[in-house]
């Protein structure tokens, strides 16, 4: 009696293991689709004429709309960034996402710093992290100048 019981126990374990094994690959692949599938770079959009955006030591906020491709819908999203003067007089585009936890930073005209509302991170006008928890300077967005028009690359393509 005991051995029959044991054989059946093993059989049950085996059958369920088989079901789980057959299910595992599709379920894992399906759940991990966002990680396993490559997502493309975002689109290049124009944010204005270089001569309008440059000049002056202070960062200038630019607002724009860009497209985010989720795979089955393309949504138009509002975004903004800061244009600052780079060392070689070419414009540099700073992402407003704090490098600590990703909150949106804003330029404070009185204190001449980017301030993060969440945990007190502070950045200098050129994006260097100068106070608080941020581990690195503000990220730069890919940018280029084409026929006097400043273009940046934002969003992602799934």
């Amino acid at each position, binding site marked *: 009696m005991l051995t029959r019981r044991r054989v059946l126990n093993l*059989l*049950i374990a085996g059958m369920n293991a088989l079901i789980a094994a057959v299910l595992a690959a599709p379920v894992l692949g399906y759940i991990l689709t966002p990680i396993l599938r490559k997502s493309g770079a975002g689109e290049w959009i124009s944010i204005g004429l270089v001569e309008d955006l440059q000049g002056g030591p202070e960062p200038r906020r630019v607002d724009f*709309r860009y497209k985010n491709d989720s795979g089955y819908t393309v949504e138009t999203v509002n975004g903004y960034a800061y244009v600052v003067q780079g060392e070689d007089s070419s414009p540099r585009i700073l992402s407003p996402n704090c490098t600590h936890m990703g909150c949106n930073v804003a330029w404070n005209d009185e204190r001449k710093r980017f301030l993060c509302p969440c945990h007190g991170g502070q950045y200098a006008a050129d994006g260097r992290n100068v106070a608080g928890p941020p581990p690195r300077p503000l990220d730069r967005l890919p940018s280029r100048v084409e026929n006097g028009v400043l273009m940046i690359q934002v969003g992602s393509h799934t």
Partner: protein
Amino acid sequence: MAPLAVEPTPKTPLKRFLALAREFLDEPLPPRVGWTHVFGGVLLFLLAIQALTGFLLALYYSPSTATAYESVKYIQERAIFGGLIRGMHRWSANLLIVTLGIHIARVFIWGAYKAPRRWTWVSGCLLLLIVLGFGFTGYLLPWDLKAYFGTEVGTHIAGSAPGVGPMALTWLRGGSQLGQLTLPRFYAIHVLLLPALLVIGVVWHLWQIRGHGITPPWVRVGEERGIPRVQPFFPFQAARDNAAMLAAFLLLIALAVMESRGYFGPPLGEKADPSNADYIPRPDWYFLGLQHLLRIFPAGFGQVLATTVIPGLAVVLLLAVPFLDRNPERSPRRRPVAMALGAAVALTVILLTLAGDRAVRREERALNQRLAAAKAKAETQAAPTESAPRDEADLIAGGEALFEQLKCGLCHSLDGPPQGGVPTLAWEGSRVREAWLRVYLKNPTRIHWETNLKRQGERPRLRMPNFELSDNEVDQLTAFLTSKQDPQLIPPQPELEGSADPAAIERGEKLVHETHRCTACHRIGDDGTPFGPDLTHIGLRGRPDFLYAIIHNPQRLDSRTKMKNLRLAPDEVIDAVRYLTTLK
């Protein structure tokens, strides 16, 4: 059995739970319980598969008319193993219905619904209704033609009940018609309400099964007491149940793989389109019988019989089986009347389903023949009219008379500027291409459907009705409207004649999409917002001269238009128009 208190009550909650689970699994079974008793276990297993695959589908599914179909397409085509997961959900649902039928038949034949297990039967029947509810609500979610028209008919059946019907119809749909308000409602019922009811029902059902034990085969009601319990459920019956689950699982995987490879036709049909008149609604197969009742009974009270009285009575009778059947015998041989009635009911359901299927197939065949005939007729008729042109002036005069008769002037002006977003027809012949106008007049709603559905309020709410014009009437109106030209306002652009140089098209594309971002207000394919007119097929619709004029100076054509004057140089306008005319 062992006396009480041999095992002390376990101390920790986990141990208490394990002891309870063991006690549940150790259920002692009477003799002659075996392979015939595996179907309940298979049902539980399939429900678990439904819960798992349903959760997975919900990860990517989005219940709105604008995204439901697209998200299911995404699951089907782009999510890794998405087609397989979706196929499993669908086929597991089908297997559930079949297994439910077998399970009910088994319980009926074994007389297991009799006292003391009457409420086990009732709870099982309620579970059946819940599962059918899942089928009904889930059918709509992919939002393809099949889903749309199947649910159109299904909700109408509910709506034809006397008295409360119209209210039920509006409630089910969330509004007067199937659409944006229906999808989230069906989704919420499918993934929140019904699963909760299902869990309650399953727990109740299992609780009763465990409480009363499995019916000892063929023992008369009231004589169960002395029957020995020969073996525990685990692992003896559990192994049989498990083997049946494995078989069902392998069958399911095979069906899902076949489904995702298109053996049963395309896994996802065309997107729902309420204006499609060439589609025969087909409910899921287990509702075919119910739908067929509508064909059997005549209009009027017969329809009420078919949609309300008969299904309602069937449910009540099913629930009442244990209370109506007072015969204490369980052996089928001593229950000839019950057996005969049961067989008659089963046969009726099967025959109705088969008849429903045949009827739908017949309707589909007839439709295909009609479509083929219409196509052939159109082809043979097209040739002679071209070879024998009618008098142009007659056509124009006929069109003008029709314009009056149909009261087109109620919305459209024939001399002034556009009003309230409705195009003026003062220079329609300069504005649109003749070929497009012909198609549009024939079926206006179809072309505007997308835009109107997506952004009501931003585009005019009124839309061009379908006047069901005959071919001759379309010719007349087209001739009349094409004659309305204004070469002063929209001068011909000789530079736009002839074929374009590809570089010009490329420059134009850049102007439209990048430099001036026309898609900020216009839609082009999947791109842009439908604030202004949709430019996706502008090459089919707009005449190049008109496109030139409106881009060059929009306010000249309509002083109140919100279109920006981009102040383009003439050769830039030419490039942009060259590009736009490629959008077909």
